[in-house]
């Protein structure tokens, strides 16, 4: 017994020494100095995890960059989960990566705090800033300052199952939201008559991110002038009531209602004949549901106007970065024509530069064309620095309106009041 415990103690001692020794080798310092010529500089690039395909594309892009800039090494860091929480923690500690991804949704809040490096000074004519699509560029521009350049974007479009359309005698996608309802009625199938359809007409997501684009067509707002929540208006009710009705009439459903994870899955499993989803759904369907015959279309018009949402992510620079010149080189390459062309070559996400879009010709693609077309009028998912709070409260209450536990009016009011109380208390 004694022997054993002595051994254990010895083991602890050795461990301690090892810890010390290991510490030495793991402390590779990241780039020193500001990339004077000949010096090797390391730029840290942080992002979230991605599919194997995406990771490969990014790696290709980074390899191309390193080849063009032999004195700059890129250290790619993946934050596997809770990306924004970890990024914020690292920013507070002054330890965030030099260049990192930022979703437009979080951009106003972060830009407000002054942790992002303004990029206007770095931009040269060669970079051709006018080549970017304006709404996407503006999603990262606050008070006239550009804080990031969009690396890609996705819009929402309507996926519809061609076989089911044929069976229901429908020809072509619905053009208006009213037509969408009619279609959904025809496409809902409840064979055993238990009141729970086996196939819903429409699958949709209840989050504000997937609903907000309808408000503008009715003249409603998500946020007001002072960035407070302002969605509890009659106009907003008008915009959102159709989907609530469809859900309660059981011709539209959430993915979870059909025992599925998300819309793409619901559509692939043929639990919904139509879904409103983004272009990330395309490779998912291609890889997992090879037999599915489907098409895509621009979203039906809302109150006579074309509307859809755009989700966009930018590369931004950490204000604390010690290698700003090199970081800019990286950003300008990744969002430049060459880098963007490699990154978006497979159409997993769409290019934000018009020239690249033209080059790759996704607008001609039968499946991806609808997403590109949506880019013309899409509203970026973004609404001031308080959106995270507003979003939270909306999601929390809107689901209960969908369930019919309270009216849409009540739900929106409650969500708005709570959100504004929180916003007010925080300021």
């Amino acid at each position, binding site marked *: 017994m004694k022997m054993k415990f002595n051994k254990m103690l010895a083991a*602890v001692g050795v461990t301690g020494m090892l810890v010390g020794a290991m510490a030495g080798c793991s402390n590779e310092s990241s780039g020193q100095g500001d990339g004077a010529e000949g010096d090797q500089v390391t730029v840290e690039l942080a992002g979230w995890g*991605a*599919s194997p395909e995406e990771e490969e594309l990014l790696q290709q892009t980074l390899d191309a960059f390193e080849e063009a800039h032999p004195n700059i090494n890129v250290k790619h860091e993946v934050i596997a989960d809770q990306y924004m929480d970890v990024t914020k923690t690292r920013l*507070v500690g002054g330890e965030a990566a030099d260049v990192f991804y930022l979703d437009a949704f979080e951009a106003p809040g972060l830009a407000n705090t002054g942790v992002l490096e303004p990029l206007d000074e770095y931009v040269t004519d060669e970079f051709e800033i006018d080549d970017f699509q304006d709404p996407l560029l503006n999603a990262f521009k606050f008070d006239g300052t550009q804080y990031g350049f969009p690396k890609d974007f996705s819009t929402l479009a309507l996926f519809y199952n061609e076989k089911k359309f044929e069976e229901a005698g429908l020809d072509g996608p619905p053009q208006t939201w009213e037509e969408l309802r009619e279609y959904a009625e025809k496409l809902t199938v409840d064979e055993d008559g238990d009141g729970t359809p086996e196939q819903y007409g429409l699958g949709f997501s209840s989050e504000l991110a997937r609903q907000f684009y309808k408000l503008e067509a009715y003249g409603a707002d998500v946020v007001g002038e002072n960035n407070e929540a302002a969605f509890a208006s009659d106009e907003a009710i008008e915009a959102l009531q159709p989907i609530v009705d469809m859900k309660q009439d059981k011709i539209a459903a959430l993915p979870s209602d059909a025992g599925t994870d998300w819309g793409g899955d619901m559509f692939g499993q043929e639990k919904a004949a139509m879904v409103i989803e983004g272009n990330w759904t395309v490779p998912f369907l291609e890889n997992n549901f090879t037999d599915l015959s489907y098409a895509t279309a621009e979203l039906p018009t809302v109150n006579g106007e074309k509307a859809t949402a755009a989700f966009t992510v930018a590369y931004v620079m950490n204000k604390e970065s010690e290698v700003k010149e090199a970081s800019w080189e990286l950003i300008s390459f990744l969002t430049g024509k060459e880098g963007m062309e490699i990154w978006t070559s497979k159409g997993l996400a769409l290019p934000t530069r018009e020239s690249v879009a033209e080059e790759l010709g996704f607008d001609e693609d039968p499946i991806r064309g609808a997403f590109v077309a949506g880019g013309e009028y899409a509203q970026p998912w973004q609404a001031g620095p308080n959106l995270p709070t507003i979003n939270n409260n909306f999601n929390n209450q809107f689901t209960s309106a969908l369930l019919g536990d309270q009216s849409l009016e009540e739900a929106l009011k409650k969500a708005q009041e709570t959100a504004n109380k929180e916003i007010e208390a925080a300021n």
Partner: protein
Amino acid sequence: MKKRTITKPVVYGVLIIYAVVTFIPFLWAILSSFKPLSEIVSGITFFPENFTFNNYAEIFSREPLFLRWMFNSIFITVCMVGLNIIFNSMAGYALARVKFAGRKFCFFLILVVLMIPFQVTLIPSYLILKAFGWLDTYQGLIIPGMVNATFIFMMRQFFLNFPKELEEAAQMDGLSRMGTFFKIVMPLAKPALAAQAVFIFMSSWNDFMRPLVIMSSEEMFTLTLGLNSFKGQYISFWNLIMAASTLMTIPSLLIYAFFNRYFIKGVTFTGGK
């Protein structure tokens, strides 16, 4: 306790039902790791319809750093288990048996520490690690985790029940407190130490949040962290996640099975005959 289980059928019945209830979700997770993503996300099938090893193949082929991560995880976990067992037991013993000024206060502090949710201490802890220069290092994970309030508390409760006579005898023989602790008390506390070892192994092996925040270089990732990066912005790759998590549970189960022998009645560790 031995012969008198009159209610045996009932006991077996209950145990078997509970075992089924416990085993099914776990079995589902394992079986899911052999399904393609399309089948897995629906959650409808139980047995794989399209049996595949691709998920495992993909994990190994995709991650060139797999061995490094495994080394990191093993190294960190071994250190954590060794240090925690000794330090937690020492503290638990002192809180239960050694009379020193401030003992109650220390115990109170241990409880308070457990009551504050980590969400508010995450950022300050991060700042402290930064001040030490320990971000992205092994010691950044090991040193702050080498003592665990939960298990100090647990060990204290165990030592409260510990027969006093043995210690008194040892002290009569001239053993110091330290000597008594390492030579008499620790060997007799095996069941509690085994339980502690299992739990510390698991919490360190499966720890996600701390490595997620502290480790930024891929070479410094633990296995849990490295294998959990199968999450895109919009889509989670559940087939890979399930395969990874199945791989991750195997060592924990082996450790548990190994230490399980210390919980088996028959070997008496106590002072009683």
